[in-house]
C-alpha cells in the first residue's frame, strides 16, 4: 500500500507527499489517529485530501496511507431504522463505544455483523442468473422485504444457494459460476457512493407521490421518481415540510439526510418516528426509514459525502423495486462544504466563492432520482427515487447560486416566503410563485383517484391570482371601490388560503389529509363560490351570502375525520339547501 507524509493542514484539507500511484477519490487513512479522508486532487506525488473528521492536533510528517478503494458504503439488511453519519458510521454504535460526544478515529462497521437474518431462497441451483436477479429475501422490518440480489458485475450459473435459515450478512449464501471463476456471495454489498447504480432504463414518472399536504398534492405535486426543491429563509418551514413528507409520503422507504443542520432536529425524528404510525400500514414510521445525520457541528467534509451516502442507499432499495423518497436538509450546507474545501485548495472561485463545478455537481445529484426499470433478467421490476432538497439561501435571496443551479434541474419549486411565515400561514409556500412541472404527467393518474381535481385546481388558482390583483387596487383606493363580484373573489380567495392551503403540521387531525379529502374540501369551497356567483347575478347582496352560517362549517371541514368522508356529502347537501332557501327568500321579496 502507498504510504506518504502530511505536508500541509488547513482545516479539513490535508496535503500529503510521496503518494505517487494513488487514485483519485480513493479513501486514505490520515495521521496517527487513522482519520478517514478522500483524495480529491493529484499533483505529481502530492495529493489533496478532504478529511471527514476533525483535524486539530494532527502534525506535519504524520503518515497517510492509501486504502486502495474509493469511498464506499455497505448495503444489506440492517440499514432500515438505523442512524448513520455522513460516511455511514452508525451513530448508535459510536455512542456505545465512545459516549455522548463523537470522537475521531473510531472505526466501526456500518452494518451489524452478528445479527442473524431469516433468509428465504427465491432461486434454485442451476438457475442462470444476471445482475439484479433475486436470490432470496429477508424480512428486514415488518414493512420491508429486503431482496438479496445478484451483485452488479456477476453473471452465470447459480451452483449453490443457502437453504431457508438464519444467516449473518457475512455468511456465504450463494456461489455463482461465472466465466471468471466461482464467485462467493454474502448478503453484504459495497458500493462507491459517487457512482450511480445502474438500471435498465429511465421512465417518465406518472404517479403522484402523495404527501398528505394539501398545498403540495393538490397544487404543486411531486411524482414518484420526481425532484423538488424547497428554498426559503430561516424559519420559513423547510424542515417541517421535509419532515411532513418523511412522515406522510406514500413511499415504501424514506431516506432522511440531515446535512449540516441542527442536532435537535435529528433527535426529534429519532424520538418521534418510532412512535408515529404509517397511515397505510399502521406500523411505526421508523420501520421504513434510514437517517443520515451530519449536523452542523460535525466535520464539514462529511457533509459533502452525506448526500451521496444517502442517495446510494436510496438506489439500493429502488433496485429492489421500491418507491424511495429522499429528503436532503439542506443541500446548501453540502454546497458550502464544497465551497470550503475548494477555497482551501485555492481553486479559482466562481459565483459567491462557489467552485465552478457547483452546478454540475447539483445536477449530478438530482439526476440520481427517477423512476426506472431495475436491473433484472426475469421480471420487469420498477422502482423509483424522489428527491426533495431544501435550499437555504443567504437572506432568503433566490438569486443565490445554489438555488439557481437547483431550479435549472428540478421539476417542482415550492417557494417559501417569510412574510407568510410571520403571519403563521403554514406551510408558507407562496401559491403564486411555486410551480410543478408534473401536472400533465399525473393527469391520468389523478383521474382514477380524484377526478376533477385538476379543474378545481385551475379555478382556485385563477381566484388566487385575481385576489393578488385586487389587493393592489384595495391598497390604492380602499375596499369600498370593489364590485360585489370582486368582493366575492376576495372572500373565496381568503377561504382557499385559510381553510385549504393553511395546514397545521402540529395538529393531530390537520397534519395529514388524503387526496380524496383534499378534493372534497376544495370542492366545497369552489361550489360555494359558484353558487354565490349565481346569487350575485340575481342581485342577492354579498352581505347575505357572507353571513351564511354554512361557511363556518366549510372552514372547519378540515377536521372531518378521514373515515367519515360521507360528512362532505351532507355538507354539500346542506349548502345546496341553504342556497335554495336564499333564492326562494329573495324571489318572495321581489
Amino acid at each position, binding site marked *: 500500500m502507498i504510504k506518504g507524509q502530511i505536508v*500541509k493542514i488547513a482545516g479539513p484539507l490535508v496535503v500529503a507527499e510521496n503518494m505517487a500511484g494513488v487514485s483519485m477519490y480513493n479513501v486514505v487513512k490520515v495521521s496517527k489517529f487513522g482519520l478517514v479522508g478522500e483524495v480529491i486532487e493529484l499533483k505529481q506525488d502530492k495529493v489533496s485530501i478532504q478529511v471527514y473528521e476533525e483535524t486539530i492536533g494532527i502534525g506535519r510528517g504524520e503518515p497517510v496511507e492509501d486504502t486502495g478503494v474509493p469511498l464506499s458504503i455497505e448495503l444489506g439488511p440492517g440499514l432500515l431504522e438505523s*442512524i448513520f453519519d455522513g460516511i455511514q458510521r452508525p451513530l448508535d454504535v459510536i455512542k456505545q463505544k465512545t459516549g455522548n460526544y463523537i470522537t475521531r478515529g473510531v472505526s466501526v462497521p456500518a452494518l451489524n455483523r452478528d445479527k442473524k437474518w431469516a433468509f428465504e431462497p427465491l432461486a434454485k441451483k442451476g438457475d442462470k442468473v444476471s445482475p439484479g436477479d433475486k436470490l432470496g429475501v429477508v424480512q428486514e422490518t415488518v414493512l420491508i422485504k429486503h431482496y438479496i440480489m445478484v451483485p452488479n458485475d456477476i453473471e452465470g450459473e447459480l451452483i449453490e444457494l443457502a437453504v431457508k435459515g438464519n444467516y449473518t450478512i457475512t455468511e456465504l449464501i450463494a456461489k455463482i459460476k461465472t466465466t471468471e471463476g466461482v464467485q462467493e456471495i454474502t448478503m453484504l454489498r459495497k458500493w462507491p457512493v459517487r457512482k450511480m447504480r445502474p438500471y435498465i432504463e429511465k421512465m417518465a414518472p406518472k404517479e403522484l407521490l402523495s404527501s398528505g399536504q394539501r398545498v403540495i398534492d393538490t397544487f404543486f405535486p411531486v411524482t414518484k421518481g420526481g425532484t423538488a426543491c424547497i428554498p426559503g429563509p430561516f424559519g420559513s418551514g423547510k424542515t417541517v415540510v421535509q419532515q411532513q413528507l418523511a412522515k406522510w409520503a406514500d413511499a415504501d422507504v424514506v431516506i432522511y439526510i440531515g446535512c449540516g443542520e441542527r442536532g435537535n432536529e435529528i433527535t426529534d425524528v429519532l424520538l418521534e418516528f418510532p412512535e408515529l404510525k404509517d397511515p397505510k400500514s399502521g406500523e411505526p414510521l421508523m420501520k421504513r426509514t434510514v437517517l443520515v445525520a451530519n449536523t452542523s457541528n460535525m466535520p464539514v467534509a462529511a457533509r459533502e459525502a452525506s448526500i451521496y451516502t444517502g442517495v446510494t442507499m436510496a438506489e439500493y432499495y429502488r433496485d429492489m423495486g421500491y418507491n424511495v423518497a429522499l429528503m436532503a436538509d439542506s443541500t446548501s450546507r453540502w454546497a458550502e462544504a464544497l465551497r*470550503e474545501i475548494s477555497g482551501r485548495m485555492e481553486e479559482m472561485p466562481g459565483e459567491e466563492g462557489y467552485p465552478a463545478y457547483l452546478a454540475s455537481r447539483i445536477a449530478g445529484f438530482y439526476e440520481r432520482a427517477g423512476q426506472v426499470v431495475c436491473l433484472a433478467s426475469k421480471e420487469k421490476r420498477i422502482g423509483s427515487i424522489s428527491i426533495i432538497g431544501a435550499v437555504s439561501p443567504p437572506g432568503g435571496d433566490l438569486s443565490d447560486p445554489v438555488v439557481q443551479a437547483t431550479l435549472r434541474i428540478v421539476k417542482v419549486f415550492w417557494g417559501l416566503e417569510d412574510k407568510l411565515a410571520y403571519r403563521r400561514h403554514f406551510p408558507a409556500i407562496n401559491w403564486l410563485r411555486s410551480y410543478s412541472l408534473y401536472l400533465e404527467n399525473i393527469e391520468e393518474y389523478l383521474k382514477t383517484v380524484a377526478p376533477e381535481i385538476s379543474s378545481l385546481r385551475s379555478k382556485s388558482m385563477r381566484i388566487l391570482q385575481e385576489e393578488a390583483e385586487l389587493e393592489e387596487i384595495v391598497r390604492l383606493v380602499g375596499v369600498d371601490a370593489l364590485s360585489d363580484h370582486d368582493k366575492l373573489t376576495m372572500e373565496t380567495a381568503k377561504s382557499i388560503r385559510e381553510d385549504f392551503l393553511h395546514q397545521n403540521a402540529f395538529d393531530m387531525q390537520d397534519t395529514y389529509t388524503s387526496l380524496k379529502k383534499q378534493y372534497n374540501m376544495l370542492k366545497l369551497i369552489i361550489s360555494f363560490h359558484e353558487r354565490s356567483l349565481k346569487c350575485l347575478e340575481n342581485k342577492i347582496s354579498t352581505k347575505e351570502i357572507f353571513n351564511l352560517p354554512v361557511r363556518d362549517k366549510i372552514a372547519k371541514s378540515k377536521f372531518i375525520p378521514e373515515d367519515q368522508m360521507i360528512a362532505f356529502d351532507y355538507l354539500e347537501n346542506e349548502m345546496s339547501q341553504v342556497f335554495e332557501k336564499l333564492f326562494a327568500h329573495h324571489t318572495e321579496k321581489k
Partner: protein
Amino acid sequence: MFKEYLSVTAVSGPLLLAEHIEEVKYGELVEIELENKEIRRGQVLEVSGDKALIQIFEGSTGINLTGSRVRFSGKSIEIGVSMDMLSRVFNGLGEPIDNGPKILPEKKIDINGSPINPYARDFPQEFIQTGISSIDGMNTLVRGQKLPIFSGSGLPHARIAAQIARQAKVLGKEEEFAVVFGAMGITFEEANFFIEDFKKTGAIDRAVLFINLASDPPIERIATPRVVLSTAEYLAFEKDKHVLVILTDMTNYCEALREVSAARKEVPGRRGYPGYLYTDLASIYERAGRIQGKKGSITQIPILTMPEDDKTHPVPDLTGYITEGQILLSRALHQKNIYPPIDVLPSLSRLKQKGIGRGRTREDHADVTNQLFAAYARGKEAKELAVILGDAALSDIDKQFSKFADEYENKFLAQGEYTNRTIEETLNIGWELLKILPRSELKRVKEEQIKTYMDK
C-alpha cells in the same frame, strides 16, 4: 520541554508566520515571548511544509521579527475548570481578572469541545417561564434551547437578557442553576450592568463571568465563547446544573473572525465574512441542549446586534439558520415606548411545540397563541392600510383588528422590567384581548376553549 524558535518571518495583522519548524500540529496552542519578556498566546491556523501560520489572541503590537520566540505546546487550547469558578470574573481567555486567587483546576478541557452525538441528545421540552408574555406566550423558551436575541444598537437587549436571567424558572421545580456569561467586545458600561444586576439578585454566587471588553484584544474574542461553553458543559454535564449561557455580542465575535480571514487573504464571502462562518458559528451554538441520562442542561441566549437593523446581514442570517428560533427586537416598538420591544411576528421559537400544552403550560396555549398571531398580523396590516388611505377606508372588521393590534401592543407586549407574569396571566390577557374581535373571526381556537377561557 518544547522547542523554541526564533524564526518569525512575517507578521501581518493578528497573524504571525514562523518558519523552519520541525514539529507542529494543526490547531495547537503557541506561546510567543516578546523581546520584553511579555508572553502572548496564539493558535496554529495552518501548517504548510515547515511553516506555521499563527493567530495571536492578544494581537501583534510590539512583536518584531528578530527578538520574538515562539514555543509550540503540543496541546490544543485548554481551560482548567472547577466549582471554584462560580462567582468569579475572568478575561476572554479564562484568566482571573478579579484579583481573586488562582483557580486550582479539577480538570482541563479542550475549549473546542467535541460534537454531541445526535443519538445521545434528549429533546428539550421543559417550559421555562421567563415571566415575559411575548416570550412565554408567543415564542416559548424551553430548557436546553438556543434562542438568540436579535437586537440593534440602542435597543434594550441587555435589560431583557438580565430580566430573563432574573426571572427564568421551570414551574414546580427548585433546581440548581448557574449562569455563565460571556462578553465579547462590549462596553464596560454594558458588562457592568450585567455584573451589578447579578450582584443585586444574588445570582452572582452561581455565575461565572468571562469578560472581553471593547478595549480588549479583538482576537481573544474568538476563544471567549468556547471558553464559556466548555465551562458551561462542565457545570451542566458533570455537575448537574441547569446552565443559562448568555453570549454578547456575537456580531463582535464575527468581526474578529473576519479580521483573521482578511489577514489570511481568504476569498471573502458576503460582506467580507469568511465562507466558513456558518460552520464556525454552529460549532458554538450547537453546544447547547440536553443529553440523555444527564440531569443538567445548557440553555443559550446569544445576543447580537444587527448592523443597520438588517436581519439579512450575515451574522443574524447565519445565526437564525442554526439557532432554534430568534427573539427579534423592534425599533418601532421601542420608539413607541413599549418594553420589551419584542416583535413577535418575525420572532420564533422552534421548540415551543413540545414545551407547551396540557401538563406543561395550559391546554389552550397553542391555539390561543396561533389566534393571537393571526389577529395581530391582520391588525398590523389594517393599520398599514389606514396609514395610506385613512381610517375611513377600513372595513368595520378591519377597524376592530386595528384596535386589537393597538391593545395587544399596550397590554400584552408591554410590561415592566420587573413584572413577572405567570403563564396563566399571560394567556388570560390574550383571551381578554380577543374579546375585541367578533367570534366568527376566531378560527384558530376551539369552541370549548372559548367557553372555558373567554366566557368565564
